[in-house]
């Protein structure tokens, strides 16, 4: 039953070569094989966005990608967002300032989605932020502080 394949990819700047079951989700590969549990799984059908990671710089849902599809790619997860010295990324700092997280389960997906948005669109409008977040569910915050944090982080990044 266990059809396996060897894959080589870069995760958070680290080269990883592993043999995985072909049916293994990328989310499970990150969480269980690599122990990167910052990426969360909320629905397993690509609807909630909690599992969002960057694949070659693009925000993707790691619950509906197979690990083998990431062969040769560069994956970035929430664990790599803060600076090496531990300083929070402007998005993370803005999330804290604006109280943009409560239970924190959707937060990694929100951060990675917004990281991708701000790279493409450094000064988004509120409508653009809300649109970018349309595939990420949050049950705690009502999104308002997340939107405020994204706009605040965009300003902070501009100032840098």
């Amino acid at each position: 039953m266990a059809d396996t394949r060897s894959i080589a990819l870069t995760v958070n700047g680290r080269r990883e070569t592993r043999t995985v079951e072909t049916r293994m989700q990328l989310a499970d590969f990150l969480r269980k094989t690599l122990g990167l549990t910052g990426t969360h799984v909320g629905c397993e059908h690509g609807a909630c966005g909690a599992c969002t990671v960057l694949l070659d710089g693009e925000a993707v849902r790691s619950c509906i990608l197979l690990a083998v599809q990431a062969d040769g790619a560069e994956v970035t997860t929430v664990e790599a967002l803060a600076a090496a010295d531990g300083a929070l990324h402007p998005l993370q700092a803005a999330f804290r300032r604006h109280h943009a997280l409560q239970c924190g389960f959707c937060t990694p997906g929100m951060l990675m989605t917004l990281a991708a948005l701000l790279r493409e669109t450094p000064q988004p409008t509120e409508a653009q932020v809300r649109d970018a977040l349309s595939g990420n569910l949050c049950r705690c915050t009502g999104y308002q502080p997340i939107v405020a944090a994204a706009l605040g982080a965009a300003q902070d990044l501009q100032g840098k």
Partner: protein
Amino acid sequence: MGVRQFGAQVQRTEDPRILTGRGRYLDDIALPGMFEAAFVRSTEAHALIRGIDAEAARAVPGVVAVLTMDDFGAAYRDKRLPLPSPHPAIRQPITQQPLARSEVCYVGEAIALVLAETRYLAEDAAALVGVDYEPLPAVADAVGALAPDAPKVHHGAPDNLVATLAARFGDAAAAFARAPHVLRETYLQDRGGGHSLECRGVIAQHDAATGQLTLWSSTQSPYMVRRFLAQYLGREETSVRVIAPDVGGGFGPKAAVYAEEYALALAAIALGRPVKWVEDRREHFVATNQQRRQRWDMEVAADGGGRILALRGRVTHDHGAYAPYGLVLPFTSLAPLPGPYLIPNVDVTLDVAFTNATPTSPVRGAGRPNVAFALERLVDLVARELKLDRAEVRRVNLVKTFPHATGAKLPSGVAVEYDSGDYVGCLDLVLRACDYAGFAARRAAALKQGRRLGLGLASYNEDTGMGPFEGALVRVLPTGKLQVATGACAQGQGLATVLAQICADEFGVGVDDVIVEAGDTNAFPLGMSTVGSRVAVTAGSSVHLAARAVRDKAIRLAAELLECAEQDLEVDAGAVRVKGVPGKQVGLGQLAQRLAGSLGMPLPAGLAPGLEAVAYHSVSRPVYASGSNAAEVEVDAATGEVKLIRYWVAHDCGRLINPLLVEGQIVGGVAHGIGNALYETMVYDGAGQPLSTTLGEYLLPTAPELPPIEVAHLESPAPSNPLGIKGAGEGGTIPAAPTVIAAIEDALADLGVRIREYPLSPQRLIELIEPIDGAGAAPAD
């Protein structure tokens, strides 16, 4: 003096860890030698189980066991889960088994438990388990379930009536008999889920050598899990430890104790290895408790000035297939009456019906949003039929003096008393915020552009800080840092931060100097549950009382060591110091070390050991938060599309511990209520098959739909606790659905559309418009 933390916009101590991916949620925990589980769940709404064929599943390589109720010994074979909150009113106290053995009563009920080396293998094998069902007739709707010839939800039961409850005070019959105006209406409210982003999950570990059972669970109620597991397993509570790690949202459903928690415990004991189950979203749609489906058949009596004289009616409550939470939920559908209003005569009866659907327990607000919907729609009905202003009808009826005894009694028998508030003040605040007076002009201007605007209002109050108690330990550590341990726990509300704020103020330190331990039954002896907007009041007051006692003890000891009078001392910046004498002080850590003792040496000043104290804040009555909300919407009568333009909240939860966090609770709660109003519905077909089991079929609100939500506060301190605080967890949700629905109805007022239900999809709105309007035509000037 140190900066006062209480009342300040303190950033959360929880955040840095969570933001950097270092949260520790249930599924992030992996124990050595752990097996992973998948459940075989009923595909039938109602059936007898003739047999279970697990042979093929057991043959899958990597599968360790396929367990049914026959595998745990004769003592468990037919044993059902303990009934929480027993009450004499319950006629049919039926709970389920950890795994259904002979009968299933809803789609999703667990039947067998597959354990394997990986979840992938466990799911492969679960799909191979054959269940031989003998289908039985099912009924999924509560009104139908109470019909005389209805199928029985439980085979062999006399009927489907779980209980009949009543809210009755004053003399409603007499008031109706002489009332100048009597109006009647029926309201329908639908079933939804909590849908925390993290589904449930359980890890169970049993140490055969010590007999110790440890359960990690994504729960709001670790102490309830401990209590009922110990009871079910015939153990002392000392041999059961329950830990709630970081919990990814609760919203009520995670407060119940579930079949899966018992099943995992039984499996860990049987196999002698740790076992883990993480619910997936499809399971969450059928196996996690839901709420809100009710029918309200109501009458209201009023005088010509819009004063409401009496209410009467009958409510039918969909309880689902079992009673996993006793009657607590249906009680919360009556106890809030008569809401924030002075209505002297009430006679409302509520029938609790079993249905062949997922069981129910509170979802954010419990029965309070149901009551608010019925009451607020009735108030709007009175205003419309008597041609009065909606705000004025509310103003006339709102309670104006406090304390106020409504005439009602709590389920405990204690008389209801609204402790404090400024209900009219909140109404005025929201009317000013939404420029109520200017709305007619806004509406007229929009009409000229062919756009229909509507404004909705709703007022509410909410019993918060429910008893009986929570408690806390406050201890000064040898380093001078403070430890707080409590039986309350958190699911994202920021409990650690607010408890740290309350503690920090007694010692003039910052929140980072306070270590908060919560969610582990070994950290503190007793706890209740994080539900009903209660832990800020109960645990927060406990921390305050314990910290005050520790502070007093520190002063007594310091007076001895510094050889001065206690009244000459103050506590600040983590030290006890002599007022006005810089440098003459002793650090809290030093004091703690003295009270930690040295072998053979007596403790100073005859003090008891330890610079620590335990306090419990016990309450017999809740404290009442309150508020008024307004929403402005635009409705497209041709397509049924509703656009939320703005939403305003005026809210009073007593003294604010942390305005940043209170606003977070309110705004998030409003979003939940908007979801109820417009999107969320759990659809069952007539045979009890759930039809909305993905996030594509069951819609949650997303960022683009939600309007700007503005929050304004009044602060009417609660007289019954030392900090004057009230709960804030559900006040956003409770009035949101009636506010939004009222706004939509208002936008269609010229068409005479009446909305008596939620959720209101565009399709449903068109169904309501078309019979009146023909084609949902353009607005009339």
